[in-house]
């Protein structure tokens, strides 16, 4: 097998001869290569940094050459280097056409094995629902506003037209911060029972027009079970301007319902009561499961309890008393507010049977929302 011999004679003739010997060995060896393994061996033998033939050429010919011959030797070594690369490349090209079928066969994988899926985080269904609602209203020109979870009685009740000792306060069992007894009622701290205080905070900060949507966490002193939670989330909305009417409230919420639940959804409104709106209205949507017929696959629709309608949110025209608390002119401005429970909407949308699942971080539950 060819090996680089030391040169004693650096004359052009001797160099020619040595180069020829190398060339012929290279051609023979390259031609003999018939597989991937052999080709790799060839490449390493000739081109390896450590002790490859080209390295040896460098050491034994070029470095050993006397100064006058250096230039000539250098040139020849470079040429040989190019030649070696060419032969090795062409050998590779040759075997890769001839060896394709067998090599590719060896590389075959079972494509029915499962893919390696990198873990991707899953959005919480409540945050996902909340963000979907917010996106609907943002597209309608609403800004997002937020407020503190610990509120004063003033913001949570009084300024929203719940007078002290009013029975309407009973419907919102309130969690209270300890040590408030010594304070005037309106300064007492509590956990907000709805996101509506942010209506007041927003109007205090800016003159009309106002258009905000308010996501947030709220608390009520409810015992936790499959349908109740002391913690839940709301999205509140408020629009105040000159010339906003009850028809606008209906149109806006109808449009939002269609964006949230599908364009075929119909809405209807019922009188209701909230101290901070007048008139107040509950909105129902036609059942998105049975299409409002109340029947599904020949049986009663469980989603809407066969009524064809599902209650989705509360709303109303902002009560003039509320404008009084924030210094808006009730004779000049009008507006509407609405609020919906995020849990309720997520429960309806995904058919979840236990509200507690939202707060347990159970991966088996969360994974269903991937």
């Amino acid at each position: 097998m060819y090996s680089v011999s030391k040169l004693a004679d650096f004359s052009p003739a001797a160099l020619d001869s040595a180069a020829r010997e190398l060339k012929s060995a290279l051609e023979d060896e390259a031609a003999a290569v018939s597989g991937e393994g052999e080709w790799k061996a060839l490449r390493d033998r000739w081109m390896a940094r450590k002790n490859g033939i080209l390295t040896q050429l460098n050491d034994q010919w070029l470095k050993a050459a006397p100064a006058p011959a250096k230039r000539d030797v250098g040139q020849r070594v470079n040429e040989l280097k190019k030649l070696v690369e060419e032969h090795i490349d062409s050998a590779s090209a040759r075997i890769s056409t001839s060896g394709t079928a067998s090599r590719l066969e060896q590389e075959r994988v079972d494509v029915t094995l499962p893919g390696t899926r990198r873990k991707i985080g899953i959005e919480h269904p409540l945050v996902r629902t909340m963000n979907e609602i917010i996106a609907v209203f943002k597209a309608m020109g609403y800004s997002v506003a937020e407020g503190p979870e610990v509120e004063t009685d003033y913001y949570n009740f009084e300024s929203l037209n719940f007078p002290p000792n009013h029975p309407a306060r009973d419907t919102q069992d309130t969690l209270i911060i300890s040590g408030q007894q010594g304070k005037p009622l309106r300064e007492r701290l509590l956990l907000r029972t709805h996101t509506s205080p942010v209506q007041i905070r927003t109007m205090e900060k800016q003159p009309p027009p106002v258009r905000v949507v308010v996501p947030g966490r709220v608390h009520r002193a409810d015992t936790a079970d499959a349908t109740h939670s002391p913690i839940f989330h709301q999205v509140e909305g408020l629009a105040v301007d000159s010339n906003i009417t009850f028809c606008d409230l209906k149109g806006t919420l109808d449009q939002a319902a269609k964006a949230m639940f599908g364009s075929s959804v119909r809405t209807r409104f019922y009188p209701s009561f909230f101290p901070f709106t007048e008139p107040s209205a509950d909105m129902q949507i036609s059942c998105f499961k049975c299409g409002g017929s109340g029947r599904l696959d020949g049986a009663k629709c469980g989603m809407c309890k066969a009524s064809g309608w599902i209650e989705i949110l509360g709303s109303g025209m902002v009560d003039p008393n509320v404008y009084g608390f924030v210094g808006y002119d009730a004779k000049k401005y009008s507006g509407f507010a609405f609020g919906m429970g995020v849990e309720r909407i997520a429960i309806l949308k995904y058919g979840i049977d236990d509200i507690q699942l939202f707060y347990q971080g159970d991966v088996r539950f969360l994974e269903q929302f991937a």
Partner: protein
Amino acid sequence: MRISPNWLREFVDITVEDSRLAEDLTHAGIAVESIVGSGEKTIFEMEITTNRVDAMNHYGVARECSAIYDINLKPITPKLAQGNTQQFPVEIREPELCGRYTARAIRDIRIEKSPRYIAERLLIEDHHAINNVADATNYTLMELGHPTHAFDLDRLEGGKIVVRRAKAGEKLKTLDGVQRELTPDDLVIAAAARPVGLAGIMGGYDTMITADTHNVLIESAWFDPATVRRTARRLGMHTDASHRFERGADWAATTLACDRVAELVLATGGGKLAEYQDCIARNPTHGPIQFDSGEVRRILGLDIPDSEVSRILRRLGFGLERKGRSTSSPPSSSAEVYKVEIPTWRTDVEREIDLIEEVARIHGFNNFANTLPSFSGAVVEQPHERPQQKLRARLLALGYDEAISPTFISNSDSQRFSSAQAIALENPLSDETPLMRNSLLPGMLDMIACNFNRGTSDIRLFELGNVFDGTTQEVNQHRHACFSATGLLDVFSVMQTPRSSDFFDVKGDAENLLALFAIESVDFVAPASNYFHPGRSAKISVGRNVVGELGQLHPDIAAERKFKQDVWLAWLDLDRLYSVPLREPRYERLSRYPSIERDFSLLLDAGMSYERLRQAIAALGIPELRSIEAHELFRGGAVPEGKYSLLLRLTFQSWERTLRDDDVAGWSQQVIAAVNSLGGSLRV
């Protein structure tokens, strides 16, 4: 509350079927929740909003029907023979708390069972017939909505009624047999020195009607809502009477209700009318309000003709008197200004807007068009919105599932996981968790435990939420993030063996999150708080601020919670982080020249931190030094005790030229000198 449509039909000639009636009432805001039974036994299960106490009885609902269908409402006029005109003595000592007290005595009656038609109607509300007198009061309540009470007149010592505040410590055994201790905040009905009834809530036990009763006194009064409510709440009592008085009873209805009870008692128990009293202390009803029908259009957005507006209001019992043309509406409008008298039963109607609501609900909400408002003004983004969105998106991209945990934590957790003063609740939901969370970590650990208990061991969770601290005077709310990883890092793959999360995974995730912000440099300083493993945790500092901590949950805490595997945790103070702007991408021209890598195998003292080494090399200030990377780390084996070996890879590149070997050789010498100055050496 329940309503019998059959009973309603005594007062109004309703022509529609019960099911249609239920629907029409609901659309007018008198919600029928469900219909039970059929034919004459049909019963509506009602859901009346708290403001509509006037509709919590049959006659009130009949009035709504009269407005909805525009039909006449028949009056209730009890027929009583002329009785004895002697006055029954009543003294109201608290005119603020008791506005009116009507009383009628009936003597020589028989206590009997009520006739069947009364007993059956009481059953609508699941009231079982007691005797003809008690039943008459309950029947009247269901019919008219005004609560009344009947005393055994012979047991009222002194033959006189006094309405006064209770004395401190005074006791009263109420009808339900419970002995109540009273305070001066409570209003009582007293006879002689003794209270005989808790005003507006429940009568006294000792003066109740029994089989031996011969003479009765019917009480029909008006009590202050707030007083009734306060006492009822304090005593934990909720009665049909208190429910109505709290919400505002009809001041003018005391005489009618009293007469109606008397009529029923006389019809069933015989006897004769005796003394009477209608003692008026004050009149709480409110006067007329001005109503501009142009406001109907402005607020509702629909032109409802004045004729329709006044028809609706009159049917509901309002009195309208035209005062002139509206001045606030455009001249083309036909709007008028009216003086509107408010019926005494409508305690909820005090303002023009209340009248507009009446018009809207009887007109029917679904008869209003759906329109969209024209808007001015722009959408404004809150400063934290964008960083929060980016942080959340990145946590999701890093493979953490989003979770939400409850707000309340235990005393021990609040002390263990934060030094901030936690906020206590006055009325906590549970004695175990009386505090608002001052850290997201307890909630996170509970969620991890919940997963372990259900057989899930590979968990990656994050939560974005508020934590609270401060005092009873001032509560501070802070935005925090928390994330945790435990178990295997990757999902199952046939091709690779997964490995468990370690410190550097969690640190890398934290670094990826911090990289969202334009932070000059982040320092990880060991150790972190003592709930972390002291050797595997660090504070995360940006400048002088600690913005969070990360590391392994302390093995002792893990053992307490019965965790059988390492749990990695991190928390971030987002208020602090969001005060830093988001990192803006910055373009840098790419070099056209090749880069050169040099590996240095170093031997370093065990105490030498990577960060010191990195800083020492960076301090050389070699502009062509593009990156410093730690590649491999060895301990033990050929590496002597007290030392470790680190393979460091430096990359050099110039924007001006191709680097020569001797450039790199020179810089390498500087690097080695820097390593030497730290007591390290090149490994040979």
